[in-house]
């Protein structure tokens, strides 16, 4: 029993360094997804049919393929064909990010649509352009509404990141496998990997839940405070 704990103890620094890789990977992918996802959502709701059509195509493509397929297509396919000497880490962020953008755009689209047309009409009636209205009126509300759905996306990307094992990225699982095969102790090592993932998931979701409370619009939602 003690040898199991010893194995974990020795493996921990190595695995934790892998966690840093995972965290950077997930962070980068989520930021990329956010940066592309928001404009895509706005494009689908307020854009003309060509823009909306293009975005729909993008969403269909990146949601329709398994992460593994996309990873291989990019890392072993596209990069080679284009002669790009990019790392597995780059491939990971790119693929996870582009894919996340597709999913995130739908989260935001749902939130924007849930506001109804009243907010945009009120903004336009004041003389705001659609762009100004989207930035100052629509997004502040839609983003807040998106937080619960978005925490789903966080946990999904975190778990998907483990697939980069297949292109040799030295994240948690790759390192876990490496140690497990050398020490012949798969159970304690993989349990440790699992625990790390659980902690990362819990931490992120908890953070988002606190964020949600902090940015909550007073009076909005289901908890009514008595003012009078």
């Amino acid at each position, binding site marked *: 029993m003690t040898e199991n704990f010893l194995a974990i103890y020795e493996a921990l620094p190595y695995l934790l360094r892998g966690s840093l890789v995972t965290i950077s990977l997930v962070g980068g992918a989520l930021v990329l997804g956010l940066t592309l996802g928001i404009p895509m959502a706005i494009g689908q709701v307020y854009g003309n049919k060509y823009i909306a059509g293009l975005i729909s195509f993008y969403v269909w493509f990146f949601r329709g393929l398994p992460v593994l397929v996309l990873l291989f297509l990019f890392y072993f396919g596209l990069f080679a064909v284009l002669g790009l000497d990019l790392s597995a880490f780059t491939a990971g962020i790119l693929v996870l990010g582009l894919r996340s953008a597709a999913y995130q755009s739908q989260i935001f689209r749902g939130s924007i649509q849930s506001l109804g047309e*009243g*907010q945009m*009409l*009120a*903004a*336009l*009636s*004041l*003389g*705001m*352009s659609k762009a*100004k209205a989207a930035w*100052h*009126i629509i997004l*502040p*509300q839609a983003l*807040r509404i998106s937080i619960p759905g978005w925490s789903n996306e966080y946990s999904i990307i975190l778990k998907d990141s483990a697939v980069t094992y297949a292109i040799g990225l030295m994240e948690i699982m790759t390192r876990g496998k490496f140690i497990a095969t050398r020490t012949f102790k798969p159970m304690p090592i993989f349990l440790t990997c699992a625990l790390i993932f659980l902690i990362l998931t819990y931490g992120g979701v908890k953070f988002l839940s606190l964020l949600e409370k902090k940015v909550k*619009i*007073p*009076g*909005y939602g289901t908890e009514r*405070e008595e*003012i009078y």
Partner: protein
Amino acid sequence: MQKDKAIVLKVEDIHKKYGNVEVLRGISFKIKKGETKVIIGPSGSGKSTLLRCINQLTIPDKGQVWLEGEEVTHTKKNINQFRQKIGMVFQDFNLFDHLNALRNVEIGLIKVKGMGKEEARQKAKEELKQVGLEEQAHLYPAQLSGGTKTEGFHSQNFSHGSQRDTI
């Protein structure tokens, strides 16, 4: 031309069809400065449609609108500038939910009129005071009662310098 100058809003021969239903069949009227016109009709008779045709939230199939002698319909000009002059109060109180009452009145002044923050804040406070809402300036639309919301919306429109308030 002399006669037209006293006329703030002129609406001529507006037609609007939704599918097979022709909601507006040649509506024309003029409003002089200081005048109040009331449009009454049963639900679904096209009142809101007419108002939306005036500030081009809906484009009429046929007909023209002039605001202070300038044509609003079929114009390449920036529609936003016309909308700044026409105030619209919606049936379901479209205040901006993520902003408190003060910010609601301010935002049009800052983002559309380009007023400075301090000036806008002052003006917003005055407008809220005028409708008796200064105590509730910090409250959000979800925390305001129905009547208060209407007043808030009026403040937003009037401070914006609307020529008229369309309800």
